[in-house]
Every structure is written in structure tokens, then in C-alpha cells.
């Protein structure tokens, strides 16, 4: 007869995560008990407050753990969760991006007084029921708790320190997003198609992932990253199990970061999903998934670096080629941004190749973790702001995402077009924007580890990406408007705030990235 030992949980350290989960649960209750008219205010305020509170608490935890005083952080929840520098940084970043996400979700002015989500998701597109839902002004305020659940998954994902937690986090992160993708108010068929594709492919990749977990467990005899790392370090045989497991798990994670050849869903989903969701998902998922990828491969499989590195060389190059070359042919703004995000995944994977043994990295060197985390920071904010801008360029049918419709935007609204041009230049990596410093950091990390051929490819493809970003600028500033031209809807202060914050961060991190980079250098250390 075994006795049951209650697991020991460090509640104080885990509090940010618990706040978000608790907030999500409360949100579900609000949905059940608060009258319909008041739900919007309660839900959006709740989501905002929860995310802010979790963000503040993340700062408190960071201070309490003494991360800036050479303390490494600690492994909590019986070894299931590692709260260290990268974890806390990603928590902070995800929460900041989620806050912007909440603001975009809560935008009501653009759809003349209702959310940009379907009035009644269950009503078939084009039916009487749908018309009724929209005339009655119905809204799905469930999007806010769904967002919070997704955020909790995004926070758990990079912190997971064993395979099972990792998988649970992956699902918690993905399921709400599948649902959110299908909730667009306009172009509902496209949106539902996106959700379906995302769900099926996502489920498929999860299956790969779980199978990979099984193989790695079979190899190492444990789910914990530390034990796996030990097994890998002292390995004598069992190569097939390990290599197979690593490969399959990589498939699952690379799917999430939308690296080629697992990127096929990205353009369709980014295009079909409500733009607020696209922005949140593009930024948040990538941040979380890269965090998980880093921890899994640097901590658990770090000893097998020579085995997985060739694979990632190929994937990084392929991803950059696919992202930048296919983007050239895009005529839809959201698809263009989707391919651009694929290309960015490739650049980050270039930084991923900058893995070096601890002994080799000198103090003050740019480490791969530091570089990628910094890149995620820059990428997250510019992506959010870019998608926020997409939501305000509209015509009679809702958002005008066709690139031809953006012609002459520079005349229509010089400020907005100027800001968008600035963000595009940042994505292209022009100096004095955060995109440049981010790119520089990942390239430096990769070259330091000897991956200069990949960097050379990356640099050449950067020129290709620059070409299509510039094409958008040309369309906005140098083309005459077609027909009546696009109109820029005036959004509420919420969306403006998203654009302003994203742009400000992009500028500040471009001009004075020093403090952030130095701080990151202090904390970018995984624990086992």
C-alpha cells in the first residue's frame, strides 16, 4: 500500500501563472452569471487586470529569486517547472504582448460598436440566424477567457521542465487558439477554414510530438529534462530511440514556430483568423514556442548538439528561403506578414545555431539564448503593431487586406502609412530600428559558433525580404489610389495604444538596445 504524498508546490514562485489561470476560470464564471449587457465591460476589464497583475507579479518573482544578483532561479513543482531567467523574461514578454492582445480584442469602434468576433459562432454563415445575431448586436465575450487560457499555456510552455508538462502546455496553448481562429465576424468561411486547417494540422503535429515524447522516454527512462540530459551525456547506445524522439519532438515544435517545411498552415491561418487573434497568435505563440524549443534542445538534448545541429542548419536555411521567396508573390497584406513571420522564424533559427558549450562563452559575449530572446522581444512588438495597423485600413467589406487596396495610403493618412513603413523597415532590419539590433544579435551568436555559412544565406535572404517590404512602401507612397481608395477608420484609443507601444518599443530598442541587452546577458541562463 503506497501512501499518497501531496506534491509540494511553491505557490509564491508560480503565482503569475496561477493568476492567469485563475483569471481564466473566473472569466468562465462571469460568462455564466453576469448579464449579457455587462459582460463586455467585466470581461475585458478582468482580462486586462489579470494580465497586468501577472506582469507585476512576474517582476516581483524576478526580484525575489535574485536573478540580477547571479542567482540562477529554481526548479519548482516537483521538478516540473523551471523558473529561471529565460522563463521569467518570456513570462514578462508574453504578458506584455497579451496585454496588447487584450486591447486589440476589446476594440469595438471599428465594427461600429461590437467586437470584431462573430456575433454567434454557431450560426451558419449566410443564414437567417447569422443576420439575427448581428442585428441584435450579439457578441462572444468568451474570447477573453479563451485568450487567458492561451496565455497560461504560453507561459507554461517555455517553463516546462519535463516532457509531460511540455505537452500539456502545448495543448493548453493551442486549443483556445484553434477556437479563436474561427471566430471572425467578417469572411466567416475563410475564418472557419483557417480554424479547421490549424486544428487538423496542429493535432497532427501534436501526435508527432507525443510519439517523440514516448521514444525519448523509452530512451532516457524519465520525463524530466535533467534526467534526459544526464542520459544523453552518458550515452553509449540507443541512438535510434534518441534521434527518432528528438526528430519527432522537433517536428511538433517547429510546427508551432512555423518553420519550413512545417509552415504550410501559417499563411492560411494568419489570413483567415480575426486580425486581432492573428497578431496575438503570431507574436505570443512564436515567443512561447521558441522558449520551449530553446529549453528542450539546449537543456535536455544539449549533449546531443552534434546530432541535431545539421538538421537545424537545413531547417533554418529552408525556412528563410521559403519565407522570403514566397513572400515575393503575395498580394494580401496578412499573407505577406505571415510569410514574413516565417522568414523571421528562420532568422531566429539562425541564432539557434549559435549554441556553444558553456565553457567557450566568455563573459560579455552575445550568447544564443540572449540573442534569440532579444529577437523575440523585437519581433513580438513590431508584429503586434503591424497587425493592429492592418485592422484599421478598411473598406466597405471590412478590413482591406488586398495589397492593391493599400495604394495611395501615404496620401490618405501619412502618419499611419509612415508608421507602417517604419515597422516594415524594422522587419527588413534597417539600422536604428529594433529589427536591426535583433538581427545583428542572432547573426553574431551564429557566427561565434561557426555557423557563418548560414549567416551568409541569411544575409542574402534579408535582401530579398527587404525587397518585398519595400514593395509595400512603394504601393503606399508611390502608387495612385485605385477606385475610391482605402479609408483609414479611426479606431478607439485601445488600438491606437497598441500601435503606439509597438512602434515606440521598435524605435527605442533600435536606438538604445544596450540596457536591455545587458540585462538579458545577465539572466539568459537555463537551469536544470
Amino acid at each position: 500500500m503506497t501512501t499518497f504524498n501531496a506534491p509540494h508546490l511553491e505557490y509564491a514562485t508560480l503565482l503569475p501563472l496561477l493568476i492567469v489561470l485563475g483569471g481564466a476560470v473566473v472569466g468562465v464564471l462571469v460568462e455564466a452569471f453576469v448579464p449579457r449587457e455587462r459582460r463586455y465591460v467585466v470581461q475585458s476589464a478582468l482580462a486586462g487586470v489579470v494580465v497586468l497583475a501577472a506582469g507585476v507579479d512576474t517582476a516581483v518573482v524576478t526580484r525575489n529569486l535574485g536573478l540580477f544578483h547571479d542567482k540562477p532561479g529554481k526548479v519548482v513543482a516537483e521538478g516540473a517547472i523551471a523558473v529561471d531567467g529565460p522563463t521569467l523574461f518570456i513570462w514578462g514578454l508574453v504578458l506584455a504582448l497579451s496585454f496588447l492582445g487584450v486591447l486589440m480584442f476589446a476594440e469595438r469602434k471599428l465594427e461600429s460598436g461590437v467586437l470584431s468576433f462573430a456575433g454567434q459562432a454557431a450560426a451558419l454563415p449566410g443564414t437567417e440566424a447569422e443576420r439575427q445575431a448581428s442585428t441584435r448586436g450579439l457578441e462572444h465575450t468568451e474570447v477573453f477567457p479563451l485568450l487567458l487560457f492561451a496565455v497560461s499555456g504560453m507561459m507554461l510552455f517555455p517553463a516546462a521542465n519535463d516532457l509531460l508538462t511540455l505537452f500539456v502546455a502545448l495543448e493548453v496553448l493551442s486549443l483556445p487558439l484553434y477556437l479563436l481562429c474561427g471566430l471572425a465576424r467578417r469572411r466567416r468561411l475563410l475564418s472557419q477554414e483557417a480554424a479547421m486547417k490549424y486544428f487538423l494540422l496542429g493535432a497532427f503535429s501534436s501526435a508527432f510530438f507525443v510519439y517523440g515524447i514516448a521514444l525519448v522516454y523509452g530512451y532516457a527512462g524519465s520525463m524530466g529534462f535533467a534526467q534526459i540530459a544526464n542520459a544523453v551525456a552518458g550515452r553509449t547506445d540507443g541512438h535510434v530511440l534518441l534521434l527518432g524522439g528528438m526528430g519527432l519532438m522537433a517536428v511538433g515544435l517547429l510546427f508551432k514556430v512555423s518553420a519550413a517545411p512545417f509552415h504550410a498552415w501559417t499563411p492560411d491561418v494568419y489570413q483567415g483568423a480575426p486580425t486581432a487573434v492573428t497578431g496575438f497568435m503570431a507574436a505570443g505563440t512564436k515567443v512561447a514556442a521558441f522558449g520551449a524549443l530553446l529549453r528542450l534542445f539546449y537543456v535536455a538534448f544539449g549533449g546531443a548538439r552534434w546530432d541535431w545541429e545539421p538538421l537545424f542548419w537545413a531547417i533554418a536555411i529552408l525556412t528563410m528561403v521559403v519565407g522570403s521567396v514566397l513572400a515575393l508573390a503575395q498580394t494580401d497584406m496578412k499573407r505577406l506578414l505571415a510569410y514574413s513571420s516565417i522568414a523571421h522564424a528562420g532568422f531566429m533559427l539562425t541564432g539557434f545555431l549559435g549554441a556553444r558549450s558553456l565553457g567557450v562563452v566568455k563573459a560579455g559575449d552575445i550568447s544564443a539564448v540572449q540573442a534569440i530572446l532579444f529577437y523575440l522581444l523585437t519581433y513580438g512588438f513590431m508584429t503586434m503593431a503591424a497587425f493592429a495597423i492592418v485592422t484599421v485600413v478598411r473598406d466597405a467589406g471590412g478590413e482591406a487586406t488586398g495589397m492593391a487596396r493599400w495604394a495611395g495610403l501615404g496620401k490618405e493618412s501619412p502618419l499611419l502609412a509612415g508608421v507602417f513603413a517604419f515597422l516594415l523597415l524594422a522587419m527588413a532590419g534597417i539600422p536604428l530600428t529594433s529589427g536591426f539590433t535583433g538581427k545583428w544579435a542572432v547573426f553574431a551568436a551564429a557566427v561565434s559558433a561557426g555557423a557563418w555559412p548560414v549567416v551568409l544565406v541569411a544575409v542574402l535572404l534579408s535582401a530579398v525580404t527587404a525587397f518585398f517590404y519595400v514593395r509595400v512602401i512603394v504601393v503606399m507612397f508611390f502608387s495612385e489610389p485605385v477606385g475610391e481608395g482605402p479609408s483609414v477608420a479611426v479606431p478607439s484609443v485601445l488600438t491606437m495604444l497598441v500601435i503606439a507601444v509597438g512602434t515606440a518599443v521598435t524605435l527605442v530598442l533600435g536606438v538604445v538596445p544596450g540596457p536591455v541587452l545587458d540585462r538579458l546577458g545577465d539572466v539568459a541562463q537555463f537551469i536544470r
Partner: protein
Amino acid sequence: MLTAMILVPFIGGLVVAFAPTKKNPTLTKQLALGVSLVTLVLAIVLAVQYQTDGGTQFVEDTMWIRAFGAHYALGVDGLGLTLVVLTAILTPVVVLASWNDGDEGRWSTAAFFGFMLALEALAIGVFAATDVFLFYVFFEATLIPTYFLIGGWGGPNRARAAVKFLVFSLAGGLVMLAAVVGLYVESAKAGTPSYLVADLAKLDMGTATGRLLFVGFFIAFAIKAPMFPVHTWLPDTTEQATPGTSVLLVSILDKIGTFGMVRFCLGIFPEASRWATPVVIVLAIISILYGAVLAIGQDNISRLIGFTSVSHFGFIVLGIFVMNSQGQNGANLYMFNHGLSTAALFLVSGFLIKRHGSASIRTLGGVEKVAPVLAGFLLVAGLSSLSLPGLAPFVSELLVLVGAFVHSPWTAAFAVLGIVLAAMYILIMYQRVFTGPERPVTAGISDLGVREVVAVAPLLLLIVVLGFYPKPVLSVLNPTVKDTLAHVGVSDPTPAVAEGSGK
């Protein structure tokens, strides 16, 4: 001091662009002229205070991004000083000469002059940066105002030309980025990473690494300069851009290419520079001859001047890479003189094109009779471009040829052909456009106005004065050349250097 020289035009540019002067474009123009004149005064003060005994002066150095080893470090040596001064001289000239060019464009007049001043600020930053990272930032940042200047004002195909310019420049810039990142890695290997040129020059890199990084920098500079075979963007751009933009682009920004070759290629990779010399010299000679031959065949005046610059830049690169003091002195002086003579050529022919409404040589003829002052100005500018003795470019071209002869007589023999061709492209153009019987289409062309004369006259004056008395500029340049050559020769003196410095 240098920071002030960057900030004055930059802030001035912002003021010009955003000040509420919509109803009164003249005020915008006066404001822009004022800002550029203040910058010129600063530049003169700088030049007067400069000690001619060499070394980097007016040094500023603040840590910028510690993790990258990047400093906000400024300073000028002789070469940097002459180019900063050149920038400061040309900007007011261009503002005055392009007085009305900003009125008919995609955006407002204020934007036109705002971009120009921003460009001046960034160009000064490029020439004054003594940190590779900072240089790179300025280098890339210049692309943005230039892009909008080309794309916003000028000929009908300007948007295409602007994109071509941007793609070529970005491609070069990104290749250089790879090399810049590589430098960081080398620097970090040796200790604390630092991007200061002074620190990097001391770096002991492996031969292969050094050569690889050299190639990265050189490609970017060759595109910028522009050299054969990556020059194709230049004629397209000069054809479409306004004359003022062309001047800023060819006379100032393209100098970044040759400036970068001296400062970074020679300064940081002495071994690799010597290694690459044969190839570079061959490319330079091809540029000289190819640019000149194509210039002869052009019908569009602006394109023609674009190709002459390809030829002139061939001379400059040749002078740099023959690796002796005559060649380098000549090349450095050439950068300054070419700036003056090409600016004059672009601006005066721009006046003509504006009056005539077309840049096609075929449609012109006999202009001499209706616009004698214009013809005279263009003749002086043209003669300076073909290096007539007594005009400034002659001195520099002669020095380059002497340097080439010291390097190898064959090189000089080929390069001399460039002079013959130069005489052809300029004189044939002059003959067709200005001499001959008056034609009905050209009868209405009026002569230069006061504003136009005032704008261009200082350039012509400088060209004549420096043609007879180049010593002020040479005495500033000479110590810098000595430093550069000493640095290149330090680790492993080559016969070519020994010959040159033994004089």
C-alpha cells in the same frame, strides 16, 4: 563639434519638414538654405581648427551598446575632414540650385528640403564615424532619405529607379553586415569586443578570415562607389532623379564607397588589401574605360554624367589600390575634386534640361547663342571633368596616373586611355548641344538667372583655385595618406609600397 555638425542639419531638416510653412514655400526654402549655411560655417570653423600634422582629431567617444562593443565615436582625419567639408559646401549649393525642384513632386516642398538636410546630417555622420558599427548605422540610414528623394521628385520612372537603387544598396549593405558581424566575433575572440576602428586595426586575424571579411566590405563599397560590374543602378538613378539629388548621391554618398575602402578595407585588413590589389586594379581599369565608352554613346545628358562618374570612380579606386603615396594622395584629392566638378556638371546641365524639357542630346543644338553664360559654365564644368590642366581634377588625375605608373607602367597605359575617352565624351556632348546652328526648339532657352549663377559660381571658382593651388587640401590629406600606407605596409612591406615611400 562633430556631433553639432550632425545635429544642426538633422534637427534643421526636421524643422524644415514639419514647420507649418504650407502656405509659404519660400520660407521653407530660405530656412533650408539657412540651416545648410550654418552647417557650412561650422565646417569652416572645423577646417580652420584642424591641425595639419595628421591623426584623428575632434575625437568624441561614448559607449553606446556595450554588448556589441559599439561606441558612439566620432573623429576626422585629413580624408574625413575634406569629405565633411565637401558635404557642407555642396549642400547649400544644391539647395540654392534646386530652389524650385521640390515644388513639383509627390510630396511637399518641405519634405524635399527636409530629406536633403537629413541626408547631409547622415553623410557627415558617415564620414566622421570612427566606429564600424556606428558607420554601418549611418551608412544604411542614408539610404532612406535618398530613396525618398529619388522616388519623390524627378522623371517619370523615378519609382523604379528608386527601388533599383535601394535594392542594390541594401544588398551591398547586408553583405557588409555579415562582415561587420564577423568583425565582432573576431574582436570578441581577442578580448573585449570593440568596434572602434583603432582597436580593430590592431586585431590579428587569420589570413583566411581577414580576406573573407575584406571581400564582404569591398563588395558593399564597390556597389556604393560604383564600380564595374555593379554600377548599373547609377545611370538609371541619375537619369530619373532631380539634378540636386544626383549631386548629393554621386558627389557625396558615392564617396562613402571609396572612403570606406581607404578607412576600413585598408585600415582594418591591410594584408587582404594587398592580396586583392591585382583584381581590384583590373576592375578599376575596366570601370574607367567601360564607363567612359558608354558615356560617349549616351543620348541622355544625365545618364551620360552618370557614366562619367563610373569612369572617375575607377580612377579613384585605382589610386587607392596602387598602394603608393602619389596614388593615394591623388585618389583622396580626386574624391574632393570630383565632388565639385560633377556637382557643377549635374547642376548646370540640370538648368538646361529644365529649360528645354528634355535631356536628350539629339534634340538640342546651338544653345551657345541663346544662353552664353550657361554654355560657358557647362564648358568649364565639362573641362574640369576631363581634367584640363589648370582645373582642380587635373592635379588629382595626374597624381593617380603617376601612382599607377609607379605601380606598373601597363596599368598607367590603360588608365591614360580614360583621359582620351573623357575628352571625347565631354567635347562631343558640348559640340552637339551648344554649338552649331540655332534650332527652333532651342530658341526659347533663356540664360541663367542670378540665383543659378550664385549657386554654381562658387563651385567653378573652387575648381579654378584648387587647379592652380591644390596645396591647402593636399597638406591636409598628406599625413593621412602616410598613416594609411604605414599601416598597410607595417606587417609586411611590399615592393610597391617601398618604392612609393622611398621617394
